[in-house]
């Protein structure tokens, strides 16, 4: 007999208030750390020390158990996370010169990762598993509380430093050198450091997702896929290629998410194509074939999920590190309207831009002169950096993990159009079983009002659906099922509104449709 994790207790008792004060202290400590990271040095070293002490204290407070209550996995996990963060701050501060920074940072990262896994195991690892969204809306970190705002500021701050002040991250970048030398024989730079932490986040939070959804084999396979896709296609392979003096090419990204792979000239595919040996040409052709043949064919058969929630790097992070924030996506009609204008606007822009660049290239600079490189840079800055990075990931704790995917990604726009109009994929609604509880809508990371369709007995065929399957997982009545089937009957009417469910159920589905 196993009890539900008592730390999930929502009742405000002593345990809750301790945990809250620990969270506030940790948040303040992190904020101080960010101030330091920005190089502001308002109080020189002492604030950093204060931050570290604060974090350590939080770790101790959390680990401190009420009498008779054994040190539970979740307390241990939490103290590892906070203790690890404290070590990280110490490392950044350059204190403890006796110990090399990379050791401190390895200890710090290791402790945070181990803590996350221990916490996940304690929360989700017991019994036979099931949906555990209890307390999501009463936990400040998950429901836009103070700590969530602090986390968003820290994350956003990290992206600002990464894109515009990489020199301030020199300390962290250097600590990754051993990995960088092993993998590709050169010192680390900010992008290698970023890729390393990104992949690590996908791995560790992926393990958490595996614990959390281990009763659901669709979620398990999908999580394994995102961990491998990120770790291999978007991290190891490009850097191994670089080690062999080949272009650092990402096989899991292509135009228009990675528009430069089909842009002419040195800022685009030009240098890959002209790379000595044949691999460069293969890469450019591979990219073009995936963009124009792979995307429509795979999306016809499987919907956009084959990419967005199984392969894409942005999706990999959203489905793992972003998993705790699914419910923060706005599901109002208004946000749907904004979404459609924005995402298709970006698609038009990148398509138009690509065309202009090629015309300019064909005219040998007759259209834009030397400005084509400028367009490429501006697009890369606005969409690659600000939208996808700073807002896309920085706002995870406030707006959910799919802000970029939903409002900005031109790749998602193309996949969505195909999914909406010509695909075998749909989410089938199970007759009249829906009880309108709202779990599906609430936990849809794309902000789709799934219940609106489900309670009408209507299938869900929406351009933005990434096929993560969470609506089907959280549904307490088995109402929703993701499936690829024939185009016929895919867009069914709202059967519970226009007629009695009984009439519709008379239809000879079993004979006319193969549910393979």
């Amino acid at each position, binding site marked *: *007999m*196993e*009890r*539900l*994790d*008592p730390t*999930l*207790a*929502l*009742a*405000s*008792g002593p345990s809750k208030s301790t945990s809250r004060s620990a969270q506030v202290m940790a948040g303040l400590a992190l904020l101080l750390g960010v101030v330091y990271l920005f190089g502001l040095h308002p109080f020189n070293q002492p604030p950093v020390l204060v931050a570290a002490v604060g974090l350590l204290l939080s770790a101790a407070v959390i680990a401190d158990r009420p009498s008779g209550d054994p040190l539970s996995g979740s307390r241990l996990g939490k103290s590892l996370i906070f203790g690890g963060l404290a070590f990280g701050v110490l490392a950044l501060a350059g204190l403890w010169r006796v110990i090399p920074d990379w050791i401190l940072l390895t200890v710090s990262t290791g402790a945070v990762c181990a803590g996350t896994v221990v916490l996940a195991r304690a929360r989700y690892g017991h*019994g*036979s*598993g*099931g*949906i555990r969204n*209890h*307390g*999501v*809306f*009463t*936990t400040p970190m998950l429901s836009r509380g103070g700590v969530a705002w602090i986390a968003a500021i820290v994350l956003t701050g990290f992206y600002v430093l990464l894109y515009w002040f990489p020199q301030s991250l020199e300390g962290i970048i250097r600590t990754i050198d051993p990995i960088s030398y092993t993998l590709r024989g050169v010192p680390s730079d900010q992008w290698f450091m970023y890729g390393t932490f990104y992949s690590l986040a996908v791995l560790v939070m992926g393990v958490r997702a595996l614990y959390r959804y281990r*009763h659901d*084999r*669709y979620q*398990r*396979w999908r999580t394994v896929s995102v961990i491998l896709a990120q770790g291999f296609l978007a991290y190891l392979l490009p850097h191994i290629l670089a080690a062999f003096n080949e272009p650092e090419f990402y096989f899991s990204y292509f135009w228009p998410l990675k528009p430069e792979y089909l842009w002419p000239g040195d800022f685009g595919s030009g240098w890959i194509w002209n790379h000595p040996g044949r691999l460069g040409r293969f890469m450019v052709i591979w990219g073009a074939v995936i963009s124009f043949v792979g995307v429509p064919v795979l999306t016809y058969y499987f919907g956009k999920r084959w990419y967005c929630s199984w392969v894409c790097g942005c999706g990999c992070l959203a489905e793992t590190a972003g998993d705790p924030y699914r419910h923060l996506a706005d599901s*109002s009609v208004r946000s749907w309207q904004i979404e459609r204008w924005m995402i298709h606007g970006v698609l038009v822009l990148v398509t138009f831009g690509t065309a202009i660049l090629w015309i300019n290239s064909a005219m040998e600079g007759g259209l834009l002169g030397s400005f084509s490189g400028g367009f490429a840079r501006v697009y890369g800055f606005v969409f690659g950096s600000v939208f996808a990075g700073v807002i896309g990931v920085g706002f995870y704790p406030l707006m959910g993990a799919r802000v970029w995917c939903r409002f900005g990604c031109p790749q998602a726009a193309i996949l969505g159009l195909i999914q909406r109009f010509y695909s075998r994929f749909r989410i*089938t609604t*199970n*007759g*009249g*079983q829906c*009880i*309108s*509880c*709202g779990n599906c809508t*609430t936990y849809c990371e794309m902000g789709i009002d799934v*219940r609106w369709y489900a309670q009408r007995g209507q299938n869900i065929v929406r351009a933005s659906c990434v096929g993560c*399957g969470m609506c*089907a997982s959280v549904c*307490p*009545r*088995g109402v929703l*099922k*993701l*499936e690829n089937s024939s185009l016929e009957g895919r867009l069914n009417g709202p059967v519970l*509104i226009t007629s*009695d*469910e*009984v009439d*519709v*159920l*008379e*239809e000879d*589905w*079993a*004979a006319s449709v193969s*549910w393979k």
Partner: protein
Amino acid sequence: MRIVIVGNGITGVTAARHVRKAADHSITIISGETDFHFARTALMYIYMGDLRYEDTKPYADEFWARNGLELVLGHAVRVDTAARCVVLASGERVSYDRLLLATGSVPNRFGWEGEYAEGVQGLYSLQDLERMEASTTDVTSAVVVGGGLIGVEMAEMLATRGIDVTFVVREQRYMEYLLAPDESSLVESAIRAHGVTLELGAELKRIEVDEAGRACATHLTDGRRIEGSFVGLAVGVRPRIDLAKASGIESGLGILVDDHFRTSTENVFAAGDCAEFRKPFPGRKPVEQLWYTGRSQGRQVAAGLLGSPQAYEPPLFFNSAKFFDLEYQTYGIVPAAVSEGQQEQFWTDGERSIRIVYRSADQVVLGVNAFGIRLRQNVWSHWLRNGATLDRVLAGFDQCLFDPEFTLRMEVAA
């Protein structure tokens, strides 16, 4: 034409939507519970922190005004059938041409000592949930009485907050009136796996109340005393008929209606939980307090409100529930134990199960119970309506599965 509906639950709201689709009559929905319709089925998720109250509203707040559905927050105390108006507690009078009473249910109490003490309650309305929230803040152990669907929900709600729950169930095995022994034991393990102490064959005698007037322990008929300052009474619900009674509208257990949902008073209809059929349908209870039934009747009674009442024919029976992590679906007729002329087949892998009941004479399938396995409703409806035989069902069993992709199938074969 003024149509007034008392009750904004699933029955009242479904009726309102169907009337609106067919005509532009004035429609007013009166509720003493909430401003807007919400999913009663999701009450437990609010308590557990899975959802917020606003997430349980199936329609955005703008929906009602946009569709010309006037909402009145107020408690209806009497229907003045002569003057054709509903009298609210505030004294306000809302006049109607046709009236629907969809007042739902109230939790049962059976006169136990201490049943009205602080910390003792059922769970039906949003107010019940608020009360439960307030009275469980500092509770460390609780007792839930009654093994129905509300009881198991209350047990789960309390357990997720780390409260020690003793679940007192009168039956010798869980839902023995509905389930086969193997099915009962699946549910019993699901309940116990979450740390809930399940006491089968146990009956409530009285609730002990402390000096402050608050429940502090529960006494069973076998003499045992169980600590717990919160007592969930989930011993069924009964139709809410006080409004009908105060208005001279005939009622029995529920508000009495014919098969057109007409009450004893002209132009007054009743449907959903609160309605009792004068002549029950074959194989069905006169009062069927199920959410799905409420929705179905709401759709049917709309015809009456539109002026052309239609005879109700209950749709093929189906229901669903979730016992902690164990999902349950049922279609058709599935008695706890098969009767004369019936046979059954049962498959289980220890965590999931399927039970199919069929007629011995011609092997025609009558119904199915599924635990931990999602079934496709339209396939099962098709089979049950068209007299599919057991062989036919088993041969095409893959067609009726609705589990997520990659789910390992349980072997189901003759």
